[in-house]
């Protein structure tokens, strides 16, 4: 992190941009970020502002990287981005610095009325620069996903040039009202819409164009549910335009970009042709076939399979018995007259009925499959969750930051391979789908492993490559880059309880997901049963980070870990070794080196010596015990031995005395 807090509510980003927390710009706020005045240290005349992101939402860092410094007439220039200490919320936050628009917002709210933009002005002031901007985004392989009149600005004071506003401070399409989202994306939860494709941006552009041409929101009176239903029943163009009068030249364009079939929807090339004056025949709305005999579910009649699938998702538990009874299959075969899908539904029901495992799970999977069969273009839906395949990452991030109970559903979706059902029903091969399918397989593997470095947290960081580490220990430091982790933990040492481990589930998962190094061995040790081995694994992980990424000294963190090494010291048997370690650890703590601390505490040679010595000592102790026991228990044997030896000694003494007496007498008599 290169930012420093400054006194007086001002922080500096990358030593250049002063963000004044005391000077908010509410007119430039977005639904997910607040705007503040920014001063450029090198060019004080430059008008800039910063958007401070909400800490609980994952910003689109990959898009920030792609768009930083890009100068495009249709795009607000993203000048700089980075993490700053933000006093109002008492933690670090992501800040994004933009050039300040001088003409204000195109529409201040979706319920406001503005002066209608004339047909000839639309092309010059809006379409030409914005299509250029979309082309720029296209070339950088990113989508905008926040195109709406309330996020468009007049860049100049004369209000001659309209630009697209911020698209990085929230997950893709998170702040988009349903009005600007295609039907499929609109059915998804806002946090699970995913990056989508350029067609989604063109759709949003078309919907925005309708509002600008009319000078108001024609569907402001409708709820999201009503609007979605109208889009499904009548098609987006009719739902949005209705019987409003629009310039004839615009109808062709609007029908093209608001087309509900993603394959038929206009591409950028079609827009270029239109801009160059070539007129194409307007696309006619293709609506799903409505049956004569409606399917009655929960007291309501449904005439299309898409509407029925939506109803099933809303009343999940009520739908299962109907599908099991075979009514849906019959309806599909006779009313919709789609034998192929009817067969697939029948097969799904048969599989569920014959499933050997938990019946409840089998039925949930069956209904998820049936919903996909009923509406193959819809998001992946499971009970209360509905997400596009590329929106799973941001969805998980939001669910976890909100600590939502839907996390359980999310986990079930991955474990029960619901995304796989969605991919299996794609009509055409898409290489992106293969990559995503492989990722979901990996996620399932990570999810089922219970230890540190795996589980839901690992999925979170694998699916959100730019998400800050969510560990409560360092959440306030907003650590996005792996090299910022150790300094953050070093700072956390000052405020953390000394008994808390510096590596929790989030930190471990963050390291494994971001640090591209072989960590399998360290993870294995980290997840062993004994506290001393867990500590060694943790130290190994952190020491490896310090070795590869620095910094050279981490006094706080080393001291923190030094205070936790009790179980490691206690794992050595030799008291002398323990005393040596207790002497050495404070010395290494003063050096601030996790690497040396790790080398000291995980010295294989010392460990083997200790173990060998301990085994020898244990054998000696056991031998001594056995001998003592033998000595204690051998009283009778010793008495018998004493009797025998005593009698032998007495006999020998007696015989020797007899021999001596005889000898003396012989000598006396002879001499």
């Amino acid at each position, binding site marked *: 992190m290169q930012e420093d807090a400054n006194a007086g509510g001002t922080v500096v980003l990358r030593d250049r941009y002063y963000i004044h927390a005391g000077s908010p710009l509410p007119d430039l706020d977005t639904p997910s970020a607040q705007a503040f005045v920014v001063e450029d240290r090198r060019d004080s005349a430059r008008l800039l502002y910063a958007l401070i992101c909400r800490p609980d939402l994952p910003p689109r860092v990959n898009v920030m990287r792609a768009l930083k410094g890009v100068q495009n007439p249709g795009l607000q220039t993203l000048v700089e981005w980075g993490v700053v200490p933000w006093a109002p919320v008492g933690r670090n936050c992501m800040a994004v610095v933009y050039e300040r628009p001088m003409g204000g917002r195109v529409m201040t709210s979706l319920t406001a009325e503005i002066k209608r933009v004339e047909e000839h002005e639309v092309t010059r002031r809006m379409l030409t620069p914005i299509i250029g901007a979309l082309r720029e985004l296209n070339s950088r392989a990113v989508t905008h996903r926040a195109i709406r009149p309330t996020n468009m600005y007049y860049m100049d004071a004369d209000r001659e040039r309209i630009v697209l506003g911020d698209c990085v401070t929230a997950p893709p399409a998170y702040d988009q009202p349903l009005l600007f989202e295609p039907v499929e994306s609109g059915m998804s939860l806002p946090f699970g819409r995913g990056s989508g494709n350029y067609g989604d941006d063109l759709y949003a552009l078309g919907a925005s164009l309708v509002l600008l041409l009319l000078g108001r929101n024609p569907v402001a009176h409708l709820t999201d549910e009503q609007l979605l239903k109208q889009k499904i029943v009548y098609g987006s163009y009719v739902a949005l335009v209705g019987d409003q009068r629009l310039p004839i030249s615009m109808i062709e364009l609007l029908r093209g970009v608001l087309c509900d079939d993603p394959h038929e929807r206009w591409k950028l090339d079609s827009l270029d042709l239109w801009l160059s004056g070539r007129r194409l025949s307007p696309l006619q709305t293709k609506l799903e076939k409505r049956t004569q005999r409606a399917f009655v579910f929960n007291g309501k009649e449904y005439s299309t399979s898409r509407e029925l699938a939506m109803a099933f998702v809303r009343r999940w538990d009520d739908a299962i018995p109907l599908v099991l009874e075979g009514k849906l299959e019959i309806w599909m075969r006779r009313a919709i007259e789609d034998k192929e899908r009817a067969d697939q539904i029948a097969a799904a029901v048969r599989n569920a009925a014959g499933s050997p495992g938990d019946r409840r799970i089998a039925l949930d999977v069956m209904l998820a499959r049936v919903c996909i069969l009923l509406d193959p273009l819809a998001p992946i839906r499971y009970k209360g969750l509905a997400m596009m395949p590329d929106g799973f990452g941001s969805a998980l991030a939001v669910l976890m930051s909100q600590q939502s109970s839907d996390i359980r559903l999310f986990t079930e979706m991955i474990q029960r391979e619901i995304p796989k059902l969605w991919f299996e029903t794609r009509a055409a091969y898409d290489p992106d789908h293969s990559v995503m399918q492989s990722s979901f397989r990996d996620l399932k593997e990570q999810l089922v492993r219970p230890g540190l470095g795996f589980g839901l947290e690992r999925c979170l960081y694998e699916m959100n490559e730019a998400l800050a580490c969510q560990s409560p220990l360092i959440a306030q430091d907003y650590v996005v880059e792996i090299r910022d982790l150790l300094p953050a933990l070093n700072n956390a040492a000052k405020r953390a309880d000394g008994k808390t481990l510096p590596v929790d589930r989030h930190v471990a998962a963050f390291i494994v997901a971001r640090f591209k190094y072989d960590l399998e061995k360290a993870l294995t040790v980290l997840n062993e049963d004994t506290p001393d081995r867990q500590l060694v694994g943790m130290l190994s992980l952190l020491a490896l980070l310090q070795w590869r990424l620095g910094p050279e000294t981490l006094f706080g963190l080393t001291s923190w870990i030094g205070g936790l090494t009790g179980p490691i010291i206690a794992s050595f048997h*030799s008291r002398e070794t323990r005393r040596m370690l207790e002497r050495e650890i404070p010395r290494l703590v003063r050096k601030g080196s996790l690497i040396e601390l790790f080398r000291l505490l995980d010295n294989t040679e010392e460990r083997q010596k200790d173990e060998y010595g301990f085994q020898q000592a244990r054998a*000696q102790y056991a031998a001594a015990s056995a*001998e003592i026991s033998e000595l204690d228990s051998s009283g009778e044997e010793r008495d018998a*031995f004493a*009797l025998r030896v005593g009698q032998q*000694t007495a006999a020998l003494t007696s015989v020797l005395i*007899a021999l001596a*007496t005889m000898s003396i007498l*012989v000598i006396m008599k002879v001499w």
Partner: protein
Amino acid sequence: MAAKQQAKARGGQQRTQGGGMRWIMMLAVTAAVPFSLPTILLLFVGLLPTLVAALVDRGPNRYAWLCVGGLNLSGVAPFLFGLWFSGHSMSAALDILFDVFPLIVMYGSAAIGWLLYRAMPPVVGALLALRAQRRVTVLRNEQRRLVEAWGEDVAEEEVG
């Protein structure tokens, strides 16, 4: 079978040889009786405690007759030598046997032998117990040193 028969034959031969020797010695002693009757009388009466000790000792080691016998012989020997060097007659032998002092000396020395036989095992036992106690002390000190160097775990039984 052949080996068994051979071993049997060898055992029989040894028994025959041992029995022969015994018979020769008994014949020699019987032949010497008329010439050494005073000595035999003195020895019989003097070594009576030894004979008694040999008869009453039912212990596994049968060392009582040796203990009593050795010192009993030491008590008898001065009078036996006196008998031999003073004419070796029955009257001299009877004089010795009818005198109280020689009997006290002969039977007293036998009593000392008996006392030795009875006293020595407890003494040896006490010495052995003392040695065992000292060994236990050494071993306990060694165990204490091991515990100090390696901790209480060193005393735990290894599982498996």
